[in-house]
């Protein structure tokens, strides 16, 4: 179907179903229950899942296929956001032109940065991309924000003001990013018994974008072009002596990857119409590396899983505080309760990075292929157990 083989079609359909049903699947606990804080089915977080999923899918095209580790991909994310917000400021709140410009501008940025950085490989490539991203951050944070020429609005971040031009904006249109009049902010709430499910326009818009991005990534992975990129990772010297010029292949992969990041950046401005320089900082670049490795670099679904995993921890674990812990351990004797709370305390709230760090270490040590490898191992064990059961049954039958 759609030029995909059987396995890929299955994977693609599963992804579509999961993203469509996410408001249900991520909201398993009733609103009033104590476990409700583990619910992830609210628009703000679900949007982050899919947007950073796109970011990681794009990053994986570069890192997973070619093995070139870019440490400056957040630059493209930021450029995408700024471009989108400028469309809002100058022309219209309609998200389509904003996204188109975000992708184009980040693509141009990627050509410039990639052209220089790809002259080196290995750690030098990583350092060059990191340097470019930090320069972009410095430009956005201070240099390009002065009274004479204010492109980024510095520390405050670029946002929309009442006196902005907004050439094509009409009174009848929502005062928020929209698609042909349908506001990205509108949410339909469905109450079923004690549960409440939220269906948000921005989420579904971003989800469709992620599904399209994912589809393109599958096609690219299975294309001759994808094979060339894997060949670069495997043996770049052989590729050159086989009559292929690895440089344009690398640049194309870098630019595609940068455009994915730009799309993700544009979508961040779709869910919330502002852009800040911190989006370009090196921590944001590092985050997408973590997502991809945690989920499984070089696999199709891994980066999306990794993005969801990290964003879940960032938003859910950081919300747990001592009060919540006391509730959990309330059934224990007082002394023991305080003791346990004191032990768990460093790992929650602001300490969620600590938990994430430990989990990341565990995954890298025990599952070098990331969460995807974990899933594969579970599936293999399950299959083996099932076969053994079947064999045992067969033995029993023949014994009877």
């Amino acid at each position: 179907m759609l030029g995909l083989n059987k396995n890929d079609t299955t994977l693609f359909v599963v992804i579509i179903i999961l993203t469509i049903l996410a408001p249900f699947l991520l909201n398993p606990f009733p609103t009033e229950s104590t476990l409700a804080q583990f619910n992830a089915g609210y628009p703000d977080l679900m949007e982050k899942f899919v947007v950073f999923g796109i970011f990681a899918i794009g990053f994986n095209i570069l890192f997973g296929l070619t093995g070139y580790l870019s440490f400056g991909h957040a630059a493209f994310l930021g450029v995408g956001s700024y471009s989108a917000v400028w469309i809002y400021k100058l022309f219209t709140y309609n998200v389509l032109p904003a996204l188109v410009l975000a992708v184009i501008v980040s693509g141009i940025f990627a050509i410039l940065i990639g052209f220089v950085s790809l002259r080196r490989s290995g750690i030098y490539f990583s350092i060059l991309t990191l340097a470019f991203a930090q320069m972009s951050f410095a430009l956005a944070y201070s240099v390009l924000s002065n009274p004479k020429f204010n492109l980024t609005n510095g520390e405050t971040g670029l946002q929309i003001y009442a006196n902005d031009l907004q050439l094509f904006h009409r009174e009848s249109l929502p005062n928020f990013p929209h698609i042909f009049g349908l506001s990205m902010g509108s949410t339909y709430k469905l109450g079923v018994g004690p549960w409440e499910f939220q269906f948000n326009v921005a989420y579904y818009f971003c989800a469709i974008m992620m599904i399209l991005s994912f589809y393109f990534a599958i096609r690219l992975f299975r294309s001759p072009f994808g094979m060339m990129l894997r060949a670069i990772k495997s043996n770049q010297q052989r590729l050159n002596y086989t009559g292929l010029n690895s440089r344009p292949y690398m640049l194309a992969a870098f630019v595609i990857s940068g455009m994915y990041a730009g799309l993700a950046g544009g979508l961040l401005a779709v869910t919330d119409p502002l852009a800040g320089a911190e989006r370009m900082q090196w921590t944001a670049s590092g985050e997408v590396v973590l997502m991809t490795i945690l989920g499984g670099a070089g696999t199709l679904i891994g980066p999306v899983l990794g993005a969801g995993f990290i964003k879940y921890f960032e938003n859910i674990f950081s919300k747990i505080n001592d009060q919540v812990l006391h509730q959990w351990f309330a059934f224990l004797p007082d002394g023991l309760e305080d003791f346990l709370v004191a032990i768990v305390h460093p790992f929650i709230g602001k300490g969620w990075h600590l938990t994430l760090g430990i989990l990341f270490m565990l995954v890298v040590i025990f599952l070098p292929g990331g969460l995807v490898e974990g899933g594969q191992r579970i599936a293999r064990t399950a299959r083996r157990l099932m076969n053994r059961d079947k064999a045992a049954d067969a033995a029993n039958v023949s014994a009877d």
Partner: protein
Amino acid sequence: MAILEVKGVNKNFGGLAALSDVDLSVQENTVHAIIGPNGAGKSTLLNCLVGKLMPDSGSVMFDGRSVLGLKPHEINQMGISRVFQTPEIFGDLTVLENIMIPCFAKRDGAFRMHAFEQFAHETALIDKSDAILADVSMADQRDAHAASLSRGDKRRLEMAMCLVQEPRLLLLDEPTAGMARADTNNTIDLLKEINSKRDITMVIIEHDMHVVFSLAERITVLAQGTPLVEDTPDNIKGNPKVQEAYLGESQN
């Protein structure tokens, strides 16, 4: 007619003269061996032919065109393929994919953006790859991971990757290094067959005299960076200068 013409090539590494005034002329459709003791500059010469090293002076003409200053992929696109001393293949890819890559290079040139095309639709190239795999009797390993092959099979795979491009000149850097005798003989047969069937000119660098004398029609002996003699295998065998280069000063 000479397909490869090397004239007055010099190459120094620091103070060491690896090649000094090397002349070499390889006739079309012949098998030309380059032999010589260790450190004679055989591999350096080969690296100057494929764009890995740039000679300090001299000229290297392939089919009337200079290859000096060209990148490895440009030289390959002119019709020169190279087999390495240790097999260089794409270990993470399957055997079929390893063969498909040179097929794409031959058909589409050094770069083509085929990101939205499907590998499975390239039936013409897949058939061609399957045929060459059958030729080197590796058809049953088509879907194996290249890294999992034995050393001899990796060597044959690399040879197939070069052959599928139908090069005009095939450069082989010790194609039987580290092989068992049986594998060596198989490789000799394979190379003989290639030479007779496909009109490919071959330049072989080799230590193993058995291989050299079974295959070569012309032999150049290199010693200390300069060509000592160039002649037919029979004449080389009896040449006292060659024996001297290999065995040191003769007694009488």
